[in-house]
């Protein structure tokens, strides 16, 4: 997708309004576009009043879990005398998802403002933004923007003369998908291996450095300034008859579409229009076969399910999958689903932190079995074996990486059994060379 990005007429542009506008990256440019008004307004409100406003807006976590943001903030203890921390999750690594990258590349101050609002609301003086190591360009842009924000009093020991202290520290990851899991991220910031922690204790009780902590996704924090500027009622109105899923959301669409990219739409938007209109539809002569809509960790949808779904938390569940991080992997009839599922399993096997047996062994063995099937060496019992292994990998580990590996496998076998049967019956030539 090229920039400047001219929004499609069906987009509702809030977070992405200035994508492609290089001047918006600077402090002055951001202020000229209405930036930092929301932070100034927030500093004149009580944290409780902000949390109530965010609750009323219906904003839910954009990283994948969809937990109500205002409610999450309200879990932070009050008057406990301990340091509180906000952690902004910018470790965007979920295959299919590339929205936070664009927020940081084009509107770094939009994120800084959201982080400052979030930090103030939960009683934190310090926010760590954890940026994945591969995001070299966002890292440079965010560093420059944070420095500018300090120079202009938007960060520091007396933010805009309010007497409030808000610091932002950028922390660079170093190549580990699992660090996007919130407790693994806290370990990584602490200088440890990125192993997820057992919950409880939940981060709001004992999180980063043992202190009360809230972790929010980039897009979630970015939305807060718009809610404060334009009001919870406005945000809540941006939906299609479903008050549980409100606001706009960036949908990343990639794979077999003519115009891959990020599209900002209101919750409840028809998935059919997102794929076939906004993202340009299929290549000539091709038809839609499957969609993985939430980043790679959610069930695969058939074309019929996808074309009937509405893009919000409930609408996608109704059609057999989940919204997740809204990273759409679109596959046309040229795609080999068995191979793509194998490639995803290989991803999870590589990224497992190997703490839990079910995950360490399960991700590795499902990958090997899928590899065997693709080599034309599959056994008739392999599908049952994959389903049995997947069952052992689901709901039994510290974090959900193991479940995420099992999900595309189980949904793939159930929804596209003929693709697997073609390899098992040797009707289809092996996709991988036998060694």
């Amino acid at each position, binding site marked *: 997708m090229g920039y400047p990005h001219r929004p499609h007429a069906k987009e509702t542009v809030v977070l992405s309004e200035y994508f492609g506008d290089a001047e918006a990256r600077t402090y002055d440019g951001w202020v000229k576009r209405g930036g930092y008004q929301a932070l100034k307004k927030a500093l004149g409100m009580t944290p409780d009043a902000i949390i109530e406003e965010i609750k009323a807006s219906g904003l839910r976590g954009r990283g994948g879990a969809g937990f109500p943001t205002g409610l999450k903030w309200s879990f932070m203890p009050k008057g406990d005398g301990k340091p509180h921390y906000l952690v902004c999750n910018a470790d965007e690594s979920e*295959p299919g998802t590339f929205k936070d*990258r664009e927020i940081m590349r084009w509107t770094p101050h939009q994120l800084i403002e959201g982080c400052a609002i979030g930090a103030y609301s939960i009683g934190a003086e310090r926010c760590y933004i954890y940026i994945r190591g591969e995001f070299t360009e966002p890292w440079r842009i965010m560093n420059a923007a944070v420095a500018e924000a300090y120079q202009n009093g938007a960060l520091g020991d007396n933010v805009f003369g309010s007497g409030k202290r808000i*610091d932002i*520290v950028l922390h660079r990851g170093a*190549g580990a998908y699992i660090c996007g899991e919130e407790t693994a991220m806290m370990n990584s910031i602490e200088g*440890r291996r990125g192993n997820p922690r057992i919950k409880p204790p939940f981060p709001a009780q004992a999180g980063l450095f043992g202190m009360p902590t809230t972790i929010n996704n980039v897009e979630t924090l970015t939305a807060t300034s718009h809610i404060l500027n334009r009001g919870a009622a406005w945000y809540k109105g941006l939906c299609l008859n479903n008050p549980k899923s409100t606001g706009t959301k960036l949908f990343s669409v990639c*794979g*077999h579409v003519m115009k891959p990219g990020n599209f900002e739409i209101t919750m409840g938007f028809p998935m059919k229009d997102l794929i076939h209109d906004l993202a340009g539809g299929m290549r000539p002569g091709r038809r839609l076969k499957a969609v993985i809509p939430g980043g790679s960790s959610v069930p695969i949808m058939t074309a019929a399910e996808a074309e009937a779904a509405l893009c919000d938390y409930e609408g996608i569940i109704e059609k057999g999958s989940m919204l997740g991080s809204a990273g759409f992997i679109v596959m046309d009839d040229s795609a080999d689903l068995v191979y793509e599922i194998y490639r995803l399993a290989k*991803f999870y096997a590589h990224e497992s932190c190997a703490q839990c047996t079910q995950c360490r062994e399960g991700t590795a063995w499902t990958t090997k079995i899928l590899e065997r099937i693709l080599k034309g060496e599959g056994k008739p019992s392999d599908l049952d074996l994959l389903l049995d292994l997947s069952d052992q990998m689901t709901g039994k580990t510290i974090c959900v990486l193991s479940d995420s590996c099992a999900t595309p496998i189980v949904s793939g076998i159930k929804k596209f059994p003929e693709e697997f049967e073609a390899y098992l019956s040797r009707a289809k030539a092996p996709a991988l060379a036998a060694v």
Partner: protein
Amino acid sequence: MSAPGSRPVLHQLGGVASGHGHGHGHAEQPYAPVFVGDALAELQALFPKYPTKRACLLPALWIVQERRGWISPEAIDEIGTVLELSPAYIRGVATFYTMYHLHPVGRHFIQVCGTSPCHLCGSDQVLDAIVRETGCGEVGATSADGRFTVVEVECLGACGFATPVLIDDDFHDSVTPEQVPGLLARYS
């Protein structure tokens, strides 16, 4: 996020667990410490940003890699001294993260995304072209002239811009096999 088994010359890690390396090619010169002058100041400037020195470990490893190209056992010892951590602990952390090089790599380190979204869009052909044009011969290897190391990595987070290729710190979008020779010519 290099693929499993893709790391070249792993034997250079062996036999240097004491931290005083006799790895190939760097034992003849006296070791020049990293954490003196600017680099030490850069690391110490991070101390107020974290409540523990341990939390400065990932940034410290980055400082070493940016200045030396890889993280040697001697550098791990140095980090241990500054941050009051054992070399064994540091090695345990460093090996968890795939972006830290614990052995020397080529002058230019090339990471090509190969996860499903990019695979659907032809990342295999881009990787093949890069392996061929660099003279690396195979994924994970370093070219004989030491100019390039090529690895396939998991999702680079730019799936709408397939195929993304990270060369050192330069992120290249939407790379096609045809663009590969011109792209590589920019890295001497």
